[in-house]
């Protein structure tokens, strides 16, 4: 079951179209589409210029010089041609610059109504996404996996708890840096449902390479269902094994860093685990969420993601199985 799920996730991620899940050329939202259109315009125009320059070079190299070339008139003619080409180049650059500025204007802020605001907080080496909880004065936390309703602009306030990171999900939007001490802003919108992958794009230390996240864009009703579920705390353990697992968690080092809402575990050094088994990946997009992968991660995360902040947590085989049974209830 676990292995099949892993493969399914991998295939789903890889099969999201030409260029793949993290590709700027595979836009799934209005901003990425606008940028992709701008990109193609630039590539085509620059490509034409390149071909012309190389053609001129080849012609220049192959050509036999004629006596007229050395005359003053010949030189002046060449000079005029160069002047003309310079003017043409300038004109093309102006067109490109204007094109870029116009496209940029459209990206600044969302045009549609009904935007949802979330906080994106960067940590070494995971993502914290917070949704404002409507009823209670609390924030709902969904680390490393961002769910958004299709067709709705999501305003993101971005911050960092440690070093500079950069939020980037190419299918939807370009990058925005997360800088400690200030709040930066961006917004995303998906017009096509799907799972998109984002990755930190500013070198942030040891495990910069393994700081990814998923954006799950789904129809509004399914999003609301998901959000409702996120607001709920963890269920009580219902079997003895789950109870044992719960106790292993509460009496072990886990509580030093992790929150499980509805229990006494309330530390926010590490990701919130209240719905860990409901997410598709663990360790910031590094591994699919399966029992086996969780077991490996808990026992020795350092061998999977060396340098990350979670120490190895060795325990007896039975304790581990019990803990996994408990974690499986946290969906």
């Amino acid at each position, binding site marked *: 079951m676990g292995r099949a799920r892993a493969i399914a996730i991998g295939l789903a991620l890889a099969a999201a179209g030409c260029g793949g899940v993290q590709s700027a050329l595979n836009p799934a939202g209005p901003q990425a589409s606008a940028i992709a259109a701008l990109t193609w315009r630039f590539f085509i125009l620059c490509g034409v210029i390149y071909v012309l320059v190389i053609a001129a070079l080849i012609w220049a190299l192959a050509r036999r010089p004629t006596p007229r070339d050395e005359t003053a008139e010949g030189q002046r003619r060449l000079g005029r041609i160069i002047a003309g080409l310079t003017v043409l180049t300038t004109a093309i650059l102006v067109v490109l610059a204007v*094109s870029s500025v116009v496209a940029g204007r459209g990206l600044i802020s969302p045009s549609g109504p009904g935007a949802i605001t979330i906080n994106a907080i960067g940590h070494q080496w995971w993502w914290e996404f917070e949704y404002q909880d409507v009823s209670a004065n609390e924030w709902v936390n969904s680390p490393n996996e961002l769910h958004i309703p299709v067709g709705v602009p999501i305003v993101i306030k971005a911050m960092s708890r440690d070093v500079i990171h950069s939020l980037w999900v190419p299918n939807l939007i370009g990058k925005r840096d997360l800088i400690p001490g200030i709040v930066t802003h961006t917004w995303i919108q998906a017009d096509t449902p799907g799972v998109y992958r984002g990755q930190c794009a500013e070198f942030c230390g040891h495990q910069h390479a393994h700081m990814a996240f998923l954006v799950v864009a789904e129809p509004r009703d399914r999003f609301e269902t998901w959000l409702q579920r996120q607001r709920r705390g963890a269920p009580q353990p219902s079997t003895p094994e789950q109870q044992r697992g719960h106790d292993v968690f509460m009496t072990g080092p886990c509580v030093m860093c992790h929150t499980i809402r509805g229990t006494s575990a309330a530390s926010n050094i590490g990701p919130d685990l209240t719905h860990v088994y409901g997410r598709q990946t663990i360790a910031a997009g590094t591994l699919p969420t399966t029992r086996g992968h969780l077991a490996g991660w808990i026992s020795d995360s350092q061998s999977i993601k060396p340098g990350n902040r979670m120490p190895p947590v060795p325990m007896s085989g039975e304790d581990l199985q019990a803990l996994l049974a408990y974690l499986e209830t946290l969906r």
Partner: protein
Amino acid sequence: MSEPAEPRARLVVERPDAPRPTDAELAREHQRLSETWRVPKGVLGWFMVVDHRSVGMRYLVTAFGFFIAAGILAALMRIQLAFPENTFLGPDKYNQIFTTHGLTMMFLFAVPVMEAMGVYLVPLMVGARNIAFPRLNAYSYYMFLFGGIFLFTALLTNTGPDTGWFSYPPLSGPEYTPGKRADVFAQLVTFTEVAALAIAVELVTTIFKLRAPGMTLNRIPLFVWAMLVTSFMVIFAMPAVVTSSTFLLLDRLVGTHFLNPAVGGDPILYQHLFWFFGHPEVYIIFIPALGMVSMIITTFTQRPTFGYIALVLSLFATGFIGFSVWVHHMFATGLPQMGLTFFTVASMLITIPTGVQIFCWIAALWKGRPQFATPLLFVIGFIVIFVFGGLSGVTLAALPLDLQVHDTFYVVAHFHYVLIGGAVFPLIGGIYYWYPKMTGRMMNETLGKANFWTLFVGFNVTFFPMHQLGLMGMPRRVYTYPAYMGWNTLNLISSLGALLLVVGGVMLVYNLVHGLRAGAPAGENPWHADSLEWATSSPPPVYNFLEVPIVEGRHAVWERSPDRPVVTGLRSDIREVLVTDVMDAEPAHRDQFPEPSIWPFLASVATGAFFVASIFTPWAVVYGLPPIGLTLIGWFWPKKPAGEHVAEMMAPGAPDPVAPDLHA
């Protein structure tokens, strides 16, 4: 001193019909000059050398050594990235390696090698016997060498910097990079920036004050113009990076808070300061190459440089605009949109002067009949690769586009296209071109052409796929990537291309050594080139020119009159050099240049010790500065008492030829 004095111009005596010296007289002059300008030998002598060709050659060889070292680091990176989830290098090693690769290429190879070509060639091209401030020149080399040794010692002891070649805080600050790694980065910058600034000041002074008579501004060779623009850029840009790395160092070592946002510091200020230097830095690397391209095209079309004025103005325009684009490295940081628009526009406009140069060069090739020797092949390769890189730069100038490809392999592709295409290819062409002058031997043409094709193909196979990888979402500075992203094939192709580049590098080294052993003798001017360095033997004698030539045109060797006018009256028993006017190179006064001296080496040891010690303890300031002071005093203290004729020069009532011009 109160008598009206002769204007200086009348002190210079023009003789239209001076007798040509006999061979015996020339031989005697050669003897005297060889003795006066001799390069000291032996172990101690090596540390006392102040002659620009020796120092330039050391710089070249050392910079190439660092190039190979950085290339090896790159090969290691490509092995790691050839396969997804590879375990050849772990994150800690990989991070040190990619950081050191970048630092070495930028600070220990690219800038120094261009400076080295300038140090070697500029005095020859302007007709001078040595570079200005020869002891500072020697000092600069030692500082560069010590900086490189410092960096690699750190890397080999697992203390290599590991936060990227720009080392942004807070990651590189005291909280997130404990230990000495980021301090090594900051001090490497200090070492190499001192070296580069010294050379910049020497080159500006040489180009303005030591040109042979007749070399008016209108007749300065294009490579010399390029080095002048580069030197100005170094002088204006480097202080910014000194400031940023000093801020970082102080934050890390003595508890300042320049870059700590919690108490009013600003990590983005670091980025502004760094990139205010960092962008001109790449033009500092690129502009000398443009000068080389002009020289090579002129020689291999055997035609006067087409569009000389346009080319010179373009160099200045590029240098100038280069200072107004730095924020395009910071488009993702959330700065106000209006300001960012300015930088988009400026970053696109900088294309124009470079475009003018490309047009002029293509016009020159169109007009003339190119001879396809190895140097010209590299120039053609430059045009093909660099124009592509420049156009990918235009795409990066567009902010929305940049926000997708910034910090991805697309950017890695872009800067390798412009730096390898735009600087390294002309440099290697320049090496093949000036090797006969520097060594007296020709390199093998067949091997040279093979070298070109290997490097050209290898380069494109390695770096072209990276454009695609960036668009497909692969960020830079990642030590590995997941297998399901679809990046596997392109990474493998890129790594195979890197293999070809290694082969090309080996070929280059082989060619260089083989030429020394088996190359045909070069003679004075094997390429029938136009500039002054080709008007003396290969390699040049220790005094550069037996008689200082008088320049009669933009292409000094081609436009020599049959009578070959020269400067006479310079003493050959001391290191006397003719200093001329800035604008028209009219003779102005005679200066005595220093003899070989151990003080530059001692001063560099003191300075280097101070820099290294200060990352370990603040007491280094107390213990480190006095030795530097002492060595500087030794450097400047005159060697021998003034001669008797001096007293006459200074006696009251003695004619003072210079008085009216003092404040001119």
